[in-house]
């Protein structure tokens, strides 16, 4: 079966073919005791000595290989920072939903749809399905993001 493999410092995943009954540690060459493997948007690392099937890894699923399970995030909006922690396999979309919620900046639905997250110092908005652990870090296991307005094109 195919799995999409996300890694640190690589925004796009790789597609790898694995045997469903292979042990995760054996099926993915780069898995050793220094990394954890997480299914996308989950918080608990997989048992790498289990088979893909037993661990709940299904065809076309997205997984993340991470040196650190938890990543600290600071999101800045209008000069105000808010921080929290997410798993490395969290999609940017998950962080965005938190940032616009009443737990952070409390943007209404119409306001939220006009905003996106961008890495601090970058102009282009992040794709919502990029993994948090794949983003550039500004400190050990920490990512800095800005909540920025999406551009409307006129003229």
């Amino acid at each position, binding site marked *: 079966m195919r799995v999409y493999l996300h890694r640190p410092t690589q925004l796009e995943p790789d*597609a790898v073919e694995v045997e469903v009954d292979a042990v995760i540690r054996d099926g993915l060459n780069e898995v050793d005791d220094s990394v954890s493997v997480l299914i996308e948007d989950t918080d608990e690392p997989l048992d790498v000595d289990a088979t893909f099937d037993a661990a709940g890894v299904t065809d076309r699923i997205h997984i993340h290989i991470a040196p650190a399970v938890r990543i600290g995030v600071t999101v800045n909006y209008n000069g105000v920072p808010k921080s929290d922690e997410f798993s490395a396999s969290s999609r940017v979309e998950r962080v965005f939903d938190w940032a616009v919620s009443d737990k952070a900046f409390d943007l209404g639905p119409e306001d939220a749809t006009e905003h996106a997250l961008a890495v601090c110092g970058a102009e*282009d908005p992040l794709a919502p399905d990029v993994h948090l652990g794949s983003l550039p870090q500004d400190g050990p296991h920490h990512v800095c993001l800005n909540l920025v307005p*999406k551009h409307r094109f006129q003229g």
Partner: protein
Amino acid sequence: MEAARVPVIPEGELFRADIAGVEFAAGADRGYWRLVEIAWPFAIIAVTAAPRPGSPDEYLFRFDLTGYPAAPTAQPWDGGVGVPLAPHRWPGGTGRVASAFNPSWRQDAIYLPVDRVALDGHDAWRTEHAAYLWDQARDITQYLRILRDLLTSAGYTGVRG
């Protein structure tokens, strides 16, 4: 001495390689888009839309990929009869959605900096919206992601009607 020949990858082959690549495949597997057909230099790709009453689950876009990986241009397409989509069946909405899908401006392009027809005549976009321009180092999914974002945003309200 004869100059060394630099192999040139035909445009169509490069596009087909991108369609077969991970970025397009991952988006297709997530249900974001699907390839309908390639009839070079054109390709028809369907992009999934958020559910709205009386509106389709997806919209088809015909891309003119002449010169790929240079910027393409795209237009909403009626896959049933193989002609441009009638304006009343275009995606409708407010704000960014209304700006992008504007048949009153043109019916053969989408009003986005990533579209080569729309960019022509909007030189200011090259500085004002530099992050939204077509990047030849990337592939067709950069355009598709923008369409998907618009069609799944709160500003998308369904077919124009």
